[in-house]
């Protein structure tokens, strides 16, 4: 059926005799990963409502882990079932694609979220009593732990008596788990969305929970709230642009399905009746619309010049959330970006490639250069994530299967490194909570060599030193770019990674070659949860660095989009 001729029909069932409402046909099995996660999220809300406070933590944790694991298993099952390759098609009446890239990215997101849940659930790092009421005696008297890194009572005004009471009572915000699950659900749909509306909905579905999560830090709540407000306003702003872009594209093609738009784009909308020639096939609409949609996605991946939110939000948000955002959001957003560019706009390649080249270069250089002078570890990592977005874009613009697979691999490799890095950040603490000021990290290598060494591994992976996953990923994307004839893009990338190396090295110097300060931070001993998270991060980093072939194959097989 030609998508253009028959309008998109999940929402409007035109066919059939009047009086009868034929149910839309949904492939529940193929959408199971998303459904499981969202379902679990709903259950999580119910738990919050019904289960007594003291049981919530464990039930929520259990629920989330089970749900995510099950969803991951479902993804594996689908992939094994050949939905990644031969049986790949567009499910849910054209709303959601089930194909290689979708499954690969969903798998990655699910794994990342699983690890993120570990860090969310960490309860050994925070002293139960802190803030004004915290006296050493109390902290000593009451063992560390039993509270996580989220606000005791988000509704309570920071510093108020209510907050102190909540803190003393040892309240915790177990709602984070269902919220997280909602976000994950949205992220699962985002890269699979195969019409613009689903894209928009998914975007909102995972953005709104993130806005909330950002606001939930237990310490430094002012920063946390500020981060939330900034993220929210800018996010809403950008999604408005995206929506307008969608509108324009719809106006251009008369449909919002990717396939439909792609078709119109490719054969300039001949068989449209001339009455609508004013809008139909009007390239201005197409180009502006495409540009606006791209902007919405570039905002999510944090590409220059739409990156301003990244450092502030990364710094203000609770570190576990930051880690989750930095990893999962990038994966989802790049997935959507790939699908948009490869499925909807291939016919437009010669228009958007140069633009994206420019964006990629700006992003690589901008991120690397500004990071040099950062003084806060979380901001530093934020800028580094911007630079990495640039490298990924270099792979995206390759417009070849190699490009797709390289980006997929890079995303997988990068997300684990990021999660691990932020997990380590949660460990380095002083009286004021996490000690994120770089100056406080001086001599960390002397105090606790192991943690410092692990962090060094992550930094080296960020820097793309050989034998780490970072190098394999970087090589893959640059290779793809070079083969697509963008050699100079590679050169710029190489130069910017040389610049980037500078600040990663600076941190290493700080940790190992500087004498520890007397009032320096201590490294808290985490529970097995965070330990596992970090361990997984390190393992992934080294395995993907030393023997990437298997995963490259995986990405390679998963690099074909269903049209």
């Amino acid at each position, binding site marked *: 059926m030609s998508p253009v001729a028959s309008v998109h029909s999940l929402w*409007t069932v035109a066919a059939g005799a009047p009086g009868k409402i034929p149910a839309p046909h949904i492939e529940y099995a193929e959408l199971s990963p998303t459904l499981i996660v969202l379902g679990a999220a709903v259950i999580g809300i119910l738990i919050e409502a019904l289960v007594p406070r003291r049981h919530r933590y464990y039930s929520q944790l259990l629920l989330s882990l089970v749900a995510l694991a099950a969803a991951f298993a479902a993804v594996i099952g689908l992939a094994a079932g050949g939905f990644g390759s031969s049986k790949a098609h567009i499910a849910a009446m054209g709303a959601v694609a089930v194909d290689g890239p979708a499954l690969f990215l969903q798998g990655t997101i699910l794994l990342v979220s699983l690890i993120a849940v570990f860090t969310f659930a960490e309860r050994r790092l925070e002293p139960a009593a802190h803030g004004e009421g915290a006296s050493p005696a109390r902290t000593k008297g009451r063992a560390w732990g039993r509270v996580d890194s989220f606000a005791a009572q988000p509704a309570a005004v920071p510093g108020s008596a209510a907050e102190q009471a909540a803190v003393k009572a040892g309240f915790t915000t177990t709602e984070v788990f269902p919220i997280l699950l909602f976000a994950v659900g949205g992220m699962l749909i985002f890269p699979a969305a195969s019409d613009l509306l689903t894209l928009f909905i998914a975007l909102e579905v995972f953005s709104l929970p993130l806005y909330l999560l950002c606001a939930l830090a237990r310490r430094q709540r002012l920063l946390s*709230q500020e981060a939330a407000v900034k993220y*929210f*306003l800018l996010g809403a*702003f950008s999604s408005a642009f995206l929506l*307008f872009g*969608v509108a324009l594209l719809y*106006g251009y093609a008369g449909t919002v399905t990717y396939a439909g738009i792609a078709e119109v784009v490719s054969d300039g909308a001949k068989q449209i009746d001339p009455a609508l020639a004013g809008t139909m096939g009007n390239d201005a609409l197409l180009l502006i619309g495409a540009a606006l949609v791209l902007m919405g996605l570039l905002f999510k991946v944090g590409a220059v010049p739409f990156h301003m939110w990244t450092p502030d939000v990364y710094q203000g948000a609770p570190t576990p959330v930051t880690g989750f955002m930095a990893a999962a959001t990038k994966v989802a957003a790049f997935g959507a970006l790939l699908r948009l560019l490869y499925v909807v706009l291939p016919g437009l390649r010669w228009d958007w490639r140069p633009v994206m080249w420019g964006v990629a270069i700006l992003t690589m250089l901008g991120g690397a250069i500004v990071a040099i002078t950062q003084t806060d570890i979380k901001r530093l990592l934020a800028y580094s994530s911007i630079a990495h977005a640039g490298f990924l874009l270099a792979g995206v613009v390759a417009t070849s299967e190699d490009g797709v697979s390289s980006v997929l691999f890079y995303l997988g490799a990068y997300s684990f490194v990021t999660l691990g890095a932020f997990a380590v950040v949660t460990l380095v603490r002083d009286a004021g909570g996490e000690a994120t000021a770089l100056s406080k990290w001086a001599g960390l290598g002397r105090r606790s060599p192991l943690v410092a060494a692990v962090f060094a591994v992550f930094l080296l992976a960020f820097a793309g030193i050989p034998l780490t996953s970072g190098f394999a990923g970087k090589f893959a994307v640059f290779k793809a770019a070079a083969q697509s004839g963008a050699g100079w893009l590679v050169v710029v990338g190489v130069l910017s990674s040389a610049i980037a190396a500078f600040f990663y090295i600076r941190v290493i110097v700080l940790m190992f070659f500087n004498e520890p300060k007397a009032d320096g931070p201590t490294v808290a001993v985490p529970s097995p949860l965070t330990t596992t998270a970090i361990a997984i991060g390190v393992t992934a980093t080294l395995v993907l660095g030393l023997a990437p072939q298997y995963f490259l194959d995986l990405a390679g097989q998963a690099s074909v989009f269903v049209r």
Partner: protein
Amino acid sequence: MNPVYYLYLAALLFTIGAAGVLIRRNAIVVFMCIELMLNACNLAFVTFSRMHGNLDGQIIAFFTMVVAAAEVVVGLAIIVSIFRTRHTASVDDASLMKL
């Protein structure tokens, strides 16, 4: 009347909204401007839907409203909490994190 005018109107509204976001300080007002932008989109959708003679645009408009509502919920929650903390809704005061 030529449907293109509706589009112009939509564009105008969108621009006004965007301008408002840039100009106004009060978080609530900024947020309202964003809502205005969304509504501009809705207008565009409906117009196009009419031009194309299919219902997708209108359906989408409904979805947009739902999303906008959801955004309001989350947004207001955040803005209110920050207002209670700082006793101000000016977005310019929330600038602890910079550089």
